């Protein structure tokens, strides 16, 4: 087989960048949902991704359920875990300040990692590909079917979330809480319930991303913190609190990392993504789509 040309290479870098970027985007989206209703930075967001991947593995390999059911159960499980964690750790602290709450999310992250390690061990795990492993070649660039799944699932998640927050009563109520919790509660919106829901939905989105990437990128118990950092960077780039911004921020981060690794040096790609984060903070501290 012939070696490939520069155009094809560039195309390949962008495809990889979009895939990785949509995962960052989903983590950023989860950040924003919680941030909007509580102004907490949830440092366990990356661990929700890990939880989604690892609980899929658990349902598939330990309970021997079919792949599709395992993934659905894993996502539902994360939804419940997210709600439970809020109820146990955040809810009882009525007047705690933000810093305390953020530290609690750090504790949640450690608890999630620790419990997954105890149950499934420290080894990395994979899942079967959702639809076979046959690579599709487009203009000479290889597209893994699993990557199409990751991108597609991200897109669907964004559309569903958009619909939920703009068209449904519950979604609108959650948005109202983020705009002004006092007025929202005066209008009869149960603010506390909305916060509970925001944790559950964030965990669900994280788990969706986790289940989608595990077949091709594997998953292990300590994958969370790195994803938290990248997702946080994406949320900052896009503007903290903005849903569209989260996805755009994720894609910018993913594509620039991938292009930098491909065209300049693969050893310094994390430095490149941090440089972009700093650049955005210098030019527009509120992020690209952030509120002033």
């Amino acid at each position: 087989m012939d070696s490939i040309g520069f155009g094809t290479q560039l195309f390949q870098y962008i495809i990889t960048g979009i895939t990785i970027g949509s995962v960052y985007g989903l983590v950023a989206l989860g950040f924003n949902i919680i941030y909007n209703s509580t102004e907490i930075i949830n440092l366990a967001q990356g661990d929700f991704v890990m939880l989604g991947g690892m609980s899929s593995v658990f349902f598939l390999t330990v309970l021997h359920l079919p792949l599709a059911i395992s993934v659905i159960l894993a996502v539902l499980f994360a939804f419940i875990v997210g709600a439970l964690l809020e109820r146990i750790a955040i809810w009882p602290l009525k007047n705690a300040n933000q810093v305390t709450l953020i530290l609690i999310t750090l504790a949640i992250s450690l608890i999630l990692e620790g419990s997954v390690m105890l149950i499934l061990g420290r080894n990395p795990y994979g899942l079967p590909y959702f639809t076979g492993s046959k690579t599709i070649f487009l203009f000479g660039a290889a597209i893994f079917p699993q990557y199409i799944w990751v991108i597609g699932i991200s897109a669907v998640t964004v559309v569903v979330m958009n619909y939920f927050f703009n068209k449904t009563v519950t979604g609108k109520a959650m948005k109202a809480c983020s705009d002004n919790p006092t007025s929202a509660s005066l209008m009869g919106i149960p603010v506390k319930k909305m916060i509970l829901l925001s944790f559950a939905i964030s965990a669900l989105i994280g788990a969706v991303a986790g289940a989608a990437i595990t077949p091709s990128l594997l998953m292990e118990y300590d994958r969370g913190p790195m994803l938290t950092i990248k997702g946080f960077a994406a949320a900052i780039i896009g503007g903290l609190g903005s849903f569209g911004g989260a996805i755009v921020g994720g894609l910018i981060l993913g594509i620039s990392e991938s292009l930098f690794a491909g065209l300049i040096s693969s050893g310094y790609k994390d430095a490149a993504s941090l440089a972009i984060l700093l650049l955005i903070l210098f030019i527009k501290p509120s992020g690209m789509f952030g509120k002033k």
Partner: protein
Amino acid sequence: MSKNFRNGLFIAAAALFSVLLIAVNGYSKKSTYVLGADFSISGRASFLGDPEAKTVRLLVSEINEKGGINGHPLKVIIYDDEGNTTKARLNVERLIKRDHVIAVLGPSLSGISLAVVDLAKRYKIPLVSAAASDRIIINPKTGKTRKWVFKTPQSNALAAKKIFGFMKKRGITRIAIITITTGFGASGRTQLIKYAPEFGIKIIADEKYGPKDTDMSVQLTKIKGTNAQALVNWSIGPSQVIVTRQWKQLGLSKQMLLFQSHGFGDRRNIKLSGGAAEGVYLPLGKVNIGKLLPASDPQKKPIMAYIRNYEKRYHKPISSFGGHAYDALMLVVHALKAVGPNKAKIRSYIEHTKNYVGMHGIFNFSPTDHNGLTEAAFVMVVVKNGDWAIAK
């Protein structure tokens, strides 16, 4: 009367028992030899430290069942550094200063070993590392062998030479390399670049990735754009599985052969690669392929015994890494048997050990070679039908 008789009997029995107890105690009154070990049992490198600690525990109980070392019971204090350099330093200092151990085994990782080697020198205590980098035993600044430090894993240089020798036989002259940015990967990269010209091999692409990276398709695409005949990946952990999978998925497998470092030496990697590992070449220590060795091989018998006992106790297959800990512990045990618990004498004894048959090769140490292995300690292996096979 019968009551008195019973009491008397009881007293007699008690007396007899205490005499026996004193006798047994007197027999094992010889002081315990205490060694120390620091492994990465949990955390990112647990796949190294876990089998290493298990191997040491297995061997210690075997040695004590057979009456210890010249009648002295053996104890190894094992600490976990969790893959963390700071913890490793604290552990090793604690072993030396508080636990007063005779020698230190480990650490598991190259980077961490480099961070503790100066302690061995400062406190004049033999340290036998279970990590691969050559810089652990040779100070890269002075080029001199570190007096108190030994290591049992084959050097990266040996693995690089073994791979290049095999490539030369196959007529491969242009290769691409991809390495992880950790101590192990960086050392592998240095050795590959250093020895390639000796074998008439040109490195036409040199890519890297971070230890937490989960996608290497960008680097591999870049390599796909070259006309390399083979790709060498140098890493440990899940990244080598991802490289293997993407080598297949990106169609590189049709274009070039894939060589992995000896870090790939765990059957779990074949399984995790999900079929993509078929046809991957790597150099492996003989401990991994005990069953494939001819009966005439002097290593076959001890290796088969290790495999049997390890699997019996832990219900898990052995890995390459446990073998490194096996060699480290047994070298110290042999020295203890010969010269007793004297740190300087143990150091000198290990340095002059010849023809010691270990798990990973036949060791011949010298004052300038604190690894004691040659390329013969590696066998080129290919993944075939989901298992290792000796490559021809």
